[in-house]
């Protein structure tokens, strides 16, 4: 058991590309849940259309990467409209069921044999990120002593953290604008906002689209980071990870999702590495090998339960803001 290497792996994952990507998707979820009070359990659906937006437009239609990003955003807007028009007028619980269902249906459609020409079916898409790699200005990796990153990671990190910064700025400006006050008003008391003559449905829809676009950008970055997308990366568990991160950091706070994502990845990697270390010296009594991965999901579930019970506002949240009621 080498504690220094375990710690450095955990630190590396907390500031690495994956944490940044999840932070971006969690910012979208924060727009939905933290500010508007929408129960979106299907954020992974937006990530999926985002990832395939880049992959399909580069591979199938031969477009450049930047056009792929535009396609991702367009796909997210279409998905948000399709999802929002039937469900946003309904109670929060219906929205929760519909979002989880729609995200799963999108995944099933993308992996279905009928879509194989476009999406590659279960095999997914590979080799669309060459243009992205060719533009990489980093030639060497970065070694900070404790943690080190490869050149390709650095390039993804620049984009991912850059987009996280941009999204955070956008969110901060929006939430301190009149628009943001209406959005928060919807979270607190939808009827009151409606009685003031605001079109609640329209505001909710704008929130759904904006948060969905952040999710799609995160999905596109996942594709570029891994050089490959398959539909089964986008299982509903991903959404629950995002929820755990958002609640850990603090919903309804600008920095909540970022802190949550970094803290979560730090803890998850720490936990994983310790379990693996124990496994390699045969110290685990009941399980080992592949079950370590399942253990991590179980821990995420436990974190969700305990957070809600004991600290619903998360690390930086405001407890009063989290007393959201069902609308």
């Amino acid at each position, binding site marked *: 058991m080498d504690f220094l290497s375990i710690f450095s792996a955990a630190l590396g994952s907390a500031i690495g590309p994956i944490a940044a990507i999840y932070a971006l998707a969690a910012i979208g979820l924060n727009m939905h849940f933290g500010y508007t009070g929408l*129960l979106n359990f299907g954020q992974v659906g937006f990530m999926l259309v985002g990832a395939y937006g880049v992959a399909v437009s580069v591979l199938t239609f031969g477009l450049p990467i930047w056009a792929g990003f535009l396609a991702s955003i367009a796909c997210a807007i279409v998905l948000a409209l399709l999802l929002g028009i039937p*469900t946003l007028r309904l109670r929060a619980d219906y929205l929760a069921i519909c979002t989880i*269902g729609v995200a799963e*249906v999108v995944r*099933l459609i993308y992996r279905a044999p009928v879509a194989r020409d476009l999406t590659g079916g279960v095999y997914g898409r590979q080799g669309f990120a060459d243009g992205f790699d060719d533009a990489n200005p980093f030639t060497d990796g970065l070694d900070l002593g404790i943690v080190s990153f490869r050149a390709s990671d650095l390039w993804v990190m620049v984009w991912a953290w850059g987009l996280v910064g941009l999204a955070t700025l956008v969110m901060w400006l929006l939430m301190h604008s009149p628009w943001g006050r209406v959005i928060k008003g919807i979270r607190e008391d939808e009827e009151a906002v409606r009685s003031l003559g605001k079109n609640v449905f329209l505001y909710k829809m704008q929130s759904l689209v904006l948060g969905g676009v952040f999710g799609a950008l995160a999905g596109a970055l996942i594709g570029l980071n891994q050089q490959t997308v398959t*539909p089964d990366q986008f299982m509903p568990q991903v959404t629950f990870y995002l929820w755990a991160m958002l*609640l850990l950091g603090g919903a309804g706070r600008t920095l909540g999702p970022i802190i949550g994502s970094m803290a979560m990845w730090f803890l998850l990697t720490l936990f994983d590495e310790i379990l693996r270390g124990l496994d390699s010296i045969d110290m685990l009594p009941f399980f080992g090998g592949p079950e370590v991965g399942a253990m991590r999901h179980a821990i995420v579930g436990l974190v969700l339960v305990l957070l809600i019970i004991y600290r619903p506002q998360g690390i930086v949240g405001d407890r009063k803001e989290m007393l959201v009621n069902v609308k």
Partner: protein
Amino acid sequence: MRRRLVTVLLAVVAAILASTAPAVADDQGGVNVNGQIRQPEEVEGIDITVFKGDEEIGKATTDPAGKWDVELPEPGDYRVVLDQKSVPKEFVVDDPPGHELEVKVREGQQRTVVFRLAPPGEQESEASPSESKDDEASPDDEGDAAGGIDSSTPFSSQVVQATIAGIVFGLIIAVSSIGLSLIFGTTKMINFAHGDMVTFGAMMALMFSTSATFGAMSLVPAALLAVILGGLLGLGLERFVWRPLRKRNVALIQMFIVSIGASLLLRHVLLISFGAQRNKYADFRIQELLTLGPVSISPRNLSIALLAIAVLVAVGLMLQFTRIGKAMRAVADNRDLSESSGIDVDRVTLYVWGMGGALAALGGVFYGLYESVHWQMGFHLLLLMFAGVILGGLGTAYGAMAGGVVIGLVATLSTLWFPAQLMVAFALAIMIIVLLVRPQGIMGRRERVG
């Protein structure tokens, strides 16, 4: 089969780890290709050669853990060839991916190349790793269960068979989802963990009926024990999780999130305890079809259907005529009003959870018999249960029954024209149409929404 699934999962995990864990992979510098032969088991002594064009760059032999790696001079396109002569006789090289792969190695990359071995004769049995990892449970993947839908039979008899299969499947959904609907009615909470309570029942029955510790009892007593345990699980959840949370005035949205957390926890604890493979119950596996005119059905599916109908009727009678049943309907209809008219709402809620858990476990056993037992079976069924419950009207027991049967029928009939993978999509499409047109469902009462 079981080992193959596990190893395929391993390969996927290995591939993901290799592509996402920079700190682990990048400790040597330079470029190389590497891999590990561990499918179906770690094999030592397999020769792997790397070519660039026709020039041999390097050669490696797998070590006792099946690992190999070859250092490369520079990034570029390489051809990695596995020497089939060095493969032990028990295995052949699986295709895809085959024994020869073209790879592109980028700057600074530790490229992982996956070769797979398989026992002879099995290598082409699966279309793709991800399909076997997570194929959407489709009733017609086993001819006898669904009554033998295959393309050679005339279309009219396919329709008849699919209808039968759909009714059986729908009855399973109905049995499992009564609890979901009544729990919503009594507590206004959507129990996202309901699917995993279904899995719990199926897994418990599997454990009792196969494990030697329990004397490998036959399925019927095993199922009874599983149903009792499922009921206890429901009671326990209500008593020790939900009731304390309600007493703390935790808002409903937070309760949803807790139930999602509970479902993740329960699902993965089941995965860790019982593994990721698909299992079938030992009993009632292969049966002669009973044929009656155009209709043929296996005795197993017939008994599932008859038992499910009996259970549904019993639950219906209980809700209609007994004191506790009436109280359940009253609380589901209006919690405050029933509390003020002297009903012990907490006690009724506890019974609803117990009954819901037991019925979910029973549905799980049925579903396991109908298809197979798998750690994600409940989650797949959950989306169909939601569709059924919303179609019938959230909060009503009879609505859940009717909605479940309709959803099962539609989902199964859709496989006549469309790929079986999409059957969940059709069920959810119906749900969304219902939400647009009649949000309260077929049997729900209109209330002010939105």
